[in-house]
């Protein structure tokens, strides 16, 4: 089998060599760089997408936080209102109770006064009666004789009546 010279120039071989290099260039471009570049683009788009997602999620979170805070503020106000209302109600109730109690106390006092007045009148009548009796007795003793008790009583009664009237009028 023959060998070519160590230094030999052949146009066709040169052209073949040029074609070889071009073919390898195309192979690398088509089968290595293009798929990898496509993959990288895809990855980039994926990353962009996930970034966008993250941003959206962050905005959502912020929104819900605002909403939550707003609601929280509302709840505070509501609670305050409820407490206030409750206080007001309680105040009203207590006022009513106190008023009732006062009314009752007044009633009791009035009752007591009325009772006292009745008692007083009763006592007056009794005392009047007794005085009449006593004075009748005394006058009987003094006079040592039977007087017409009925007349006498009428006399004393009218007398006491006068005294009582003048006493009542003084009051």
């Amino acid at each position, binding site marked *: 089998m023959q060998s070519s010279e160590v230094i030999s120039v052949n146009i066709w071989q040169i052209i073949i060599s*040029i074609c070889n*290099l*071009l073919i390898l260039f195309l192979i690398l471009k088509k089968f290595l760089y293009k798929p990898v570049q496509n993959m990288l683009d895809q990855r980039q788009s994926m990353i962009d997408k996930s970034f966008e997602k993250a941003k959206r999620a962050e905005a959502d979170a912020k929104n819900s936080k605002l909403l939550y805070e707003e609601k929280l503020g509302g709840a505070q106000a509501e609670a305050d209102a409820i407490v206030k209302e409750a206080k007001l109600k309680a105040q009203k109730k207590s006022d009513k109770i106190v008023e009732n109690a006062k009314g009752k106390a007044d009633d009791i006092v009035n009752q007591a006064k009325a009772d006292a007045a009745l008692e007083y009148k009763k006592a007056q009548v009794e005392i009047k009666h007794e005085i009449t009796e006593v004075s009748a007795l005394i006058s009987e003793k003094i006079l040592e004789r039977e007087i017409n008790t009925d007349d006498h009583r009428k006399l004393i009664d009218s007398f006491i009546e006068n005294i009582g009237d003048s006493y009542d009028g003084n009051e």
Partner: protein
Amino acid sequence: MDEKRYSAKFRAVDTLLIIMMILPILFGITLYVLCTPESSGIEIAGARIYFTIPMPLQPLPITESQVNSWLVIISVFFLCLYLTHGLSADHPTKRQHIVEWGLEQTQNLVGDNMGEYFKDFAPFVAAIMVLSALSSLLTLVGLYPPTSDLNVVGGWAILVFILITYYKFKCGPVHYLKSYTEPVAFLTPLNVISEFATPVSMAFRHYGNILSGSVISVLVAAALQGLSAMIFGRLPGFLGQFPFLQIGIPAVLSVYFDIFSGLLQAFIFAMLTMLYVASGFPEEDYREKLRKKAANAAR
């Protein structure tokens, strides 16, 4: 990555692609073994010619360098398929990390050396690097490296020259011709010479490095055989003929000439391609021209 994620089908395709990647190299070795006549000592020759196709101007011999180039291209094609197999945006595999890293490296290299305008040159530069490096590394499996054939490297250099000239022509032929008279008019012949020296120097640098590596390797191996025969020749029987000095020492040379030199030349060729193409392109003038054109169109 967890292996369980891969289905049986995925793994089968992977295995098939790896086999297809290795198969061309095995085919090359088989072809080499079948076609190589019994060694006749030291031999420094060009690529073996498998057959010759009659063509106008010059007959086309299909040699080892062509066949090996094609084998490398097929291998790289399946390597690409293997590397991009199972790409996913969200679950990158180890393989994918390597691919992304490599691609980023080439893109950064091109971006740093050529500027933003030549961003799409990354696959081309990568193709030069891969083809050159793998062609040179074919010596590791005993095959003839296509890069030690002047025609192969010369073809690449001519392609680069075409690219340089194309980008120099971007501002029109007048601008192109004018660039030869700079910085002073009487330097024009030198400029013309240096213009054509560019591809020639590129081709010969690469080709010479790889070829000289092979030549030196062969010479040193032969010399070591002679030396070993001289020193140990008096030993009886088989021991006297065994080339003891050929153990180890050629391997060190191989590390330098086959691996280091091959990769370095691939890198240098790619670097020079980038620098020549980018520096030949008058970017500012081109932008000026575009601006004027846009202004004219607006008017």
